[in-house]
């Protein structure tokens, strides 16, 4: 017997990571998959209802209705709406805080790094461009916040400004234009509570509303507001994986989705006096180590702070391995995915946990609830606490560095602006490639990482390989990006895995066949690209040879995301069904009925080859529709 915690860890597409985790002496999420592998069928199908004390009720042939009379359709839809509402709430929380940070930055004449981003927003929102930048920023922030706080019966002002016109028209027809984002979440939660709505179709339409609100505000706007405060993404080659962790520095792993909370910390860690503090305890300085979406955000904008950020180490289910290297001295968490499982690991490895947003409080984390006006004092406190942790732990905790893990040349920093610039300032080159057939179509492989669709990132990586083999270029955002990049699929060398035509395109342009948009928030950016392409061609989004996949979607946010994709009329592939299989109605609406309504459809397929086949078929259909 050896020191390994257990005999059974789940597979990972990232083999070096899989081996590292299998050999760890502590338990991780990968160890716990087998023990939870027999799933309750009622839960899996969404036909278990716990909304009242007469329950929990389950739908069976001998009991086809809950005690209240709810059918499987009602129970499944209520459960689904609840998840989408919560998921939407998550993203709206993020954009709300981001908008407040922008507002406070404007009011305090803080630094504006993304001038072009600000100008673009000003134009889109119809704000007076003659105002000084801070006034502009203030106006932008206030417009966003005003919208977020509107009551549910008042359409949000920016929806029409940001949405693609044909889509807006369709949504208006369907009556799914959202009211205030927070009110929508509120109503969504109320609607699916005990004995309220029992209209499955109405609840599904509510999910679409929540999707639109999530997509335009949570996904799209958060990125643009962040660009203003933190700088725009810039395409560059960057190192990724556990190799970015340098033990000579005081390393802080960050988790969450709110890059703007780190604006001040980022700056401070590069200041002379702070570096001196680090040197005084034997380190060369501080480094932020990217993990989860906020890490992807840092990577996206990495060109602006290369001295305190060496790279993105991995996605949510890589976070435990990141900590297990022993070289992380503190975790700063402010949102998901901050796994509860990191608590015992941080305890064991004496890693200081500090939580910046109470919504993501870890039991053993110290809470420093971020407040703009207190940010300077808070940052000093945080820095000092981390230095203490560094001093204490480096003496006693052994290193398990993985300098070979990951790679040095992942293409990152792709955004709706940087990609267009890369193509020479216009979309035409990309459209030409698609029209000519050199690129068969575009696939967005986005969203989370999970451990049960074949294993950690297994379906994501396999599906992506199948898609690029079929000359379909892949755009990625979210933890799926974190997995794909650690497996080398975002390096120029990955072109070798693509079909001949796509391979040639990649080699000519010097790009990877998989483009890294960054955090899951950047799914909104991806959708902006789709909108831009559609606009230029003069078609609506459902006509584009574009498919979306969230192969290993994980949490409720992903479902809200997915509803935006469906509202946009995109085919959405999922590796595992979202607990809806117990309702024929819901399955029919999402996989067939939606095609008539928004043009979108859900495809559930866990086999990567079959999924790629289905996605390719849709792309070919759409090409035919465009006569290309």
């Amino acid at each position: 017997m050896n020191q390994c915690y257990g005999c059974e860890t789940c597979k990972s597409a990232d083999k070096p990571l899989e081996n590292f985790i299998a050999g760890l002496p502590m338990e991780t999420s990968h160890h716990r998959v087998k023990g939870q592998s027999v799933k309750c069928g009622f839960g899996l199908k969404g036909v278990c209802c716990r909304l009242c004390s007469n329950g929990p009720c389950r739908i069976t042939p001998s009991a086809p209705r809950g005690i209240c009379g709810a059918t499987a359709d009602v129970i499944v839809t209520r459960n689904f709406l609840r998840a989408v509402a919560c998921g939407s709430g998550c993203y709206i929380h993020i954009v709300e805080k981001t908008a407040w940070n922008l507002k406070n930055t404007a009011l305090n004449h803080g630094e504006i790094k993304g001038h072009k981003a600000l100008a673009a927003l000003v134009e889109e929102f119809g704000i007076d461009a003659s105002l000084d930048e801070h006034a502009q920023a203030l106006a932008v922030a206030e417009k966003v916040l005003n919208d977020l706080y509107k009551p549910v019966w008042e359409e949000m002002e920016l929806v029409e400004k940001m949405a693609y016109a044909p889509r807006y028209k369709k949504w208006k027809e369907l009556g799914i234009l959202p009211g205030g984002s927070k009110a929508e979440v509120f109503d969504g939660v109320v609607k699916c509570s005990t004995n309220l709505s029992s209209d499955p179709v109405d609840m599904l339409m509510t999910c679409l509303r929540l999707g639109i609100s999530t997509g335009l505000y949570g996904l799209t706007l958060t990125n643009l507001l962040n660009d203003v405060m933190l700088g725009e993404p810039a395409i560059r080659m960057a190192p990724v994986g556990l190799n970015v962790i340098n033990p000579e520095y005081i390393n802080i792993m960050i988790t969450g989705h709110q890059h703007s909370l780190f604006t001040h910390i980022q700056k401070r860690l590069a200041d002379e006096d702070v570096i001196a503090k680090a040197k005084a305890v034997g380190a060369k300085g501080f480094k932020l180590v990217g993990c989860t979406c906020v890490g992807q955000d840092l990577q996206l904008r990495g060109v602006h702070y290369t001295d305190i950020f060496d790279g993105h180490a991995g996605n949510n289910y890589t976070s435990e391995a990141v900590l297990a290297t022993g070289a992380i001295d503190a975790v700063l968490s402010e949102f998901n995915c901050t796994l509860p499982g990191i608590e015992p690991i941080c305890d064991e490895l004496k890693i200081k946990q500090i939580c910046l947003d109470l919504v993501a409080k870890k039991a053993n984390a110290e809470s420093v609830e971020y407040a703009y006006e207190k940010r300077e004092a808070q940052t000093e406190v945080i820095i000092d606490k981390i230095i203490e942790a560094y001093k204490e732990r480096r003496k006693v905790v052994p290193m398990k560095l993985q300098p070979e893990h990951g790679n040095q040349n992942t293409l990152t920093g792709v955004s709706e602006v940087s990609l267009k610039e890369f193509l020479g300032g216009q979309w035409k080159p990309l459209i030409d490639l698609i029209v000519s057939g050199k690129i068969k179509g575009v696939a967005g492989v986005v969203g989370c990482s999970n451990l049960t669709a074949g294993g950690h990132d297994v379906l994501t990586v396999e599906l992506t390989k199948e898609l690029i083999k079929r000359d379909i270029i892949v755009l990625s955002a979210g933890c799926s990006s974190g997995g794909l990049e650690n497996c080398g699929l975002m390096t120029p060398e990955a072109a070798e895995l693509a079909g001949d035509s796509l391979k040639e395109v990649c080699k000519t342009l010097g790009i990877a066949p998989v483009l890294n948009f960054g955090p899951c928030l950047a799914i909104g950016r991806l959708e902006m690209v789709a909108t831009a392409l559609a606009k230029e061609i003069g078609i609506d989004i459902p006509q584009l040879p574009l498919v979306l996949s969230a192969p290993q979607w994980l949490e409720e946010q992903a479902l809200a995301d997915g509803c935006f994709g469906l509202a946009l009329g995109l085919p959405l592939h999922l590796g595992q069904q979202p607990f809806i299989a117990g309702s024929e109605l819901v399955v029919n609406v999402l996989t067939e009925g939606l095609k008539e309504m928004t043009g979108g459809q859900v495809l559930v397929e866990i086999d990567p080859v079959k999924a790629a086949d289905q996605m390719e078929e849709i792309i070919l259909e759409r090409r035919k529709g465009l006569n290309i």
Partner: protein
Amino acid sequence: MKRIMIDPSKCDGCKNCALACMDSHRMDGGDGVVTLNFTLPETEARNEILNDGKGGYLPMFCRHCSVPGCANSCMSGALKKDMETGHVMYDEKRCGACFMCVMNCPYGIPKPSADGTKILKCDFCNERPEGPACVAACPKQAIWVEEV
């Protein structure tokens, strides 16, 4: 003899049977699944649900076999097929914790207890008049008792 019959196609993996088994064999004097401590190793069921690899489930329940591999290998006399009921009953006090029964059941049903001092095996709920607790608890009637 009475035997618990299985239709795997009806099983939904809800594990009500496992909970009922835990409840009917608990040693803490409590009653009702709600008061069961799910994290104690001693709270362990004598049945098991496996994935069938195709999205379905396989209920693993002791058959009280006509030729019981477990009883036929018992070196302490703890496992014996009751001539009247036909059930293979287990006398914990006689058991020597050698686990030859674990090795000899071709279906892998018995298992050592968490503390390694005895085995866990179905006892047909000790012939209670209402029948086995698991059968009563199944919401899909995937298991039922038949005279064979």
